[in-house]
């Protein structure tokens, strides 16, 4: 049978399965919103009322579905979208939303295929379809979809990555690598593409190159290229839950946008004034913005709402520490540890306070407890190593400095330098020189000229190696 006839058959069968019969109109869903947050409940109940009053208006029923979807009520949302689609069969919007609210991937595929006949140019839908087809082992169909996106949008990193996955599936590693490389060329921080390429190169025995991509992956992990999906963006905007604002605030904070993060927290508190997490986070955010009065105000409100929030005491402790109120800071860190004895940062900060008071035994104990609570804690390792080196306990100091080298950050050159110096003091000049060399290279890669100068001063001749 020719390809043409097979395609015709497929379309007809699809039509039989999905279109030809009169579409069932499920009722507007019954909802129990009793325990919902008041603002969320008000929004949903208002939309529900409208949908019940106008059950044959696709826009009204669909709007309810969008609200439900925004609050992750996917079964009820799917019911609304199915009704909206039955009322307005030519609408791509309801079909797309229905496809994305399914738990059954096979159903999603059928609905998306139908939807794309209504709007063949909606790239996020086509990409989703390609991904789902790949997951369902429908490889040829998946390849066609990725190909279609790449023809329309050759600069789509997602489609390049998807095509790479397809070729990886069918065992064509050369083509897979080519597509992964293209995806990375288009969006360098693409975590999934870097990971896939690293694994592929490892399989091919290209160890050095694979290490490079593993490193890129570790730097970016879940970072993905932005995908313009206006229809899903409309849904995201409808999330009236306080936690949605907290999540957005966390992203803004990570991006260094502290005032914007404060604003998102304020929005969260407008919705739920008793959301302790927002109060706790605002202690830290206002502290870092230098608005001490505000930070104190949120500390008080946080512990009024919940006296057992370890991070409220910790954040306030940091604020006091930065304000040089060391005795008060110490009390806060102690309180933190009463609630959570494994709070690594509180142990570390307490260690630092003890060290400032000259109590090195207590300081070392706290640093080591910080390391026990959080093994990958380079700064605590470094401080513990310093004290031990000063006490001439070189093997223990070396053990801590060695463990401070992971995960790598801009302080790593200093840790390498400390390790080098400790080796030399312990009498092992060869290891000392080796680590000094590594420290110098690392300092150079981070542009730390002062540290380089110190290393050159203490280890003359290294720069010539």
């Amino acid at each position, binding site marked *: 049978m020719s390809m043409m006839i097979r395609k015709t058959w497929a379309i007809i069968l699809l039509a039989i399965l999905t279109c030809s019969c009169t579409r069932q109109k499920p009722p507007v869903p019954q909802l129990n919103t009793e325990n919902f947050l*008041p603002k969320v409940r008000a929004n949903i109940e208002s939309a529900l009322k409208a949908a019940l009053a106008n059950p044959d208006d696709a826009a009204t029923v669909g709007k309810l579905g969008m609200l439900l979807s925004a609050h992750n009520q996917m079964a009820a949302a799917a019911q609304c979208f199915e009704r909206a689609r039955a009322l307005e069969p030519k609408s791509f919007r309801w079909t797309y939303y229905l496809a994305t609210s399914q738990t059954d991937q096979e159903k999603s595929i059928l609905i998306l295929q139908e939807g794309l006949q209504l709007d063949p140019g909606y790239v996020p839908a086509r990409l989703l379809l390609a991904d789902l087809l790949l997951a369902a082992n429908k490889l040829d169909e998946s390849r066609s979809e990725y190909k279609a996106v790449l023809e329309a949008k050759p600069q789509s990193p997602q489609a390049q990555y998807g095509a790479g996955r397809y070729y990886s599936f069918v065992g064509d590693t050369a083509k897979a690598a080519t597509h992964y490389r293209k995806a990375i060329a288009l969006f360098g921080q693409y975590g999934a593409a870097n990971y*896939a390429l690293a694994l592929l190169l490892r399989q091919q025995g290209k160890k050095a190159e694979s290490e490079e991509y593993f490193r890129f992956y570790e730097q970016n992990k879940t970072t993905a290229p932005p995908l313009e999906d206006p229809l899903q963006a409309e849904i995201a905007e409808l999330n009236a839950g306080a936690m*949605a604002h907290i999540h957005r605030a966390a992203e803004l904070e990570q991006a260094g946008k502290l005032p914007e993060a404060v604003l998102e927290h304020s929005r969260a508190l407008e919705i739920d004034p008793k959301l302790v997490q927002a109060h706790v986070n605002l202690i830290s955010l206002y502290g870092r913005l230098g608005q001490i009065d505000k930070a104190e105000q949120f500390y008080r409100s946080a512990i009024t709402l919940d006296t057992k929030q370890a991070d409220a005491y910790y954040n306030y402790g940091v604020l006091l520490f930065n304000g040089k109120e060391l005795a008060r800071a110490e009390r806060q860190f102690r309180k933190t540890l009463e609630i959570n004895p494994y709070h690594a940062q509180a142990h570390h900060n307490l260690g630092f306070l003890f060290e400032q008071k000259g109590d090195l035994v207590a300081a070392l104990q706290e640093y080591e407890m910080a390391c026990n*609570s959080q093994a990958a804690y380079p700064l605590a390792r470094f401080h513990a190593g310093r004290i031990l080196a000063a006490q001439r306990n070189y093997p223990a100091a070396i053990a801590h400095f060695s463990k401070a080298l992971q995960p790598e950050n801009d302080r790593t050159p200093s840790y390498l330098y400390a390790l080098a110096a400790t080796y030399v003091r312990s009498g092992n000049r060869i290891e000392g020189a080796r680590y000094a060399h590594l420290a110098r290279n690392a300092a150079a890669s981070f542009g730390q000229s002062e540290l380089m100068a110190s290393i050159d001063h203490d280890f003359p001749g290294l720069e010539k190696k």
Partner: protein
Amino acid sequence: MTVLKLMMAALPFLLLTSCVKVTQAPILFEDSAAAAGLNFTHVTGATGEYFLPEIMGPGVALIDYDNDGDLDIYLIQGKSFDGKVGSGNRLFRNQLKETGKLSFVDVTEQAGVGFVGDGMGVAVGDYDNDGFADIYVTNFGPNVLFHNNGNGTFTDVTKQAGVNDPRWSTSAAFVDYDKDGLLDLFVLNYVDFTVEGNKPCFSTTGERDYCTPKAYHSVPARLFHNQGGGVFTDVTEKSGISSAYGPGLGVVTGDFNGDGWDDLYVANDTAANLLWLNQKDGTFREEALRSGAAYASDGVARAGMGVTAGDFDGDGHDDILVTNLTREGATLFRGNGLGDFDDTSLKSGLAQLTSRFTGFGAKWFDFDNDGKLDLFIANGAVTRMETQRGKPRPFEQTNQLFQNVGGTLREVSAAAGNAFQVAGVARGAAFGDIDNDGRIDIVVANNEGPVRLLLNRSAASMHWLHVQLDGGPLNRFGVGAKVELRRKGVASIWRRVSTDSSYLSAHDSRVHFGLGSQPEVEELIVHWTDGSKESFAAIKPDQIVQIRKTTGKLTR
């Protein structure tokens, strides 16, 4: 051809495909807990504060504690944080050998193992090589090591053994990582949750719900080296195990890189899974990322809960399966025996089949005795399910059974009996032949619910063989040894002795071989952990055989 004609032509095809059936032997698991007197209901004492440990337990162990040749059952109990609810763990003795009928009697009090705590999981191993299996209980709070006195009683030896961990421990495994013939102990910890520091978490609708582990900091695992004389040393730092960690929930041991030394694989919840490769000098190196077993193929960490390792595709190498959260699907890492893994979850179809469930306990096991490893997954949600709103426990899901058909896993839950239609909040699952009929049974531990004893009634006509190893004075139960079964004209079947894997649970230490309709066993080769081999020929099927190291004897 017109469109109408094409449509008419399509109809018979549709009718035909809808009628096609696959002929197969009946698959049946029967919940026989009540009939066998296994009366136990797990409680959490939840008060509406949504303390995270409430939703995570419990585990279960299959252990022949009295060496009478049948498997007894040790069940982990929860406790409310105000101490008002919780009756302690229970030990049920199997009376099969003495009465000829499968029935259980609660012997907790006389055995002295009714520890009352915020119980999580259990590991089983004979750490002092006295021939009696001992029990290690993990808790939210101090853990407990029960030494089996060999007379039906146990003694709490946690303090003198030095194996306590006061943090929130989850799964644990006995493993002889340094080949000194003494079982060491690897204990996972989860997060730094404290009752005092309980954080309020909410669903997207603002309803109170259980937090994810991300609300807390993860806590490192602990490795205890068995020094002999009933004493362990904490070698967590020295061994390198503390250098990487996440919220650990599942652990499985195995020689994943084929160097003859046991490695450790850890399933972490919302963080990279870990593969600790044994460096043969008392240390481990973490290699999950570079081995391809840290993440699914998209590089995104899943909510790893349970884990199992086994050669499901019959290529002689262990494949690792990790159970995850709803919408994530289970991850199937196919191993090449050299420490490299390939995520084949999508290719195998398993990701799709499991994506509607939150999986916990899981294990490769040959339920139909056809020589190929099948799979069971115990399911139950951890956060409110929208479709169960209004129910007091909106976390219930059904369990899943997958049959291995020619290296492909096919879900057969719907055909496996009513036990697979009953929803619950399943967590731990332990596997073993409880009624000694040659078929592997399952005990499922439900959170805030009754224990299920799923007796395997499938494939009665198929042949089988159980092998119990006795390592003599060292590594008594042969943990880590591999048993190879050879038959004419077919590939060897490899099985490894262990009690770990799944979730919070411990299993029958006997290795099981399904022989299908071909009863002849040409040769059975035991590859002991010290590198020595012993071979036995012309073994009759359908029996339990015991092999004692260096004696060259195989007994029934």
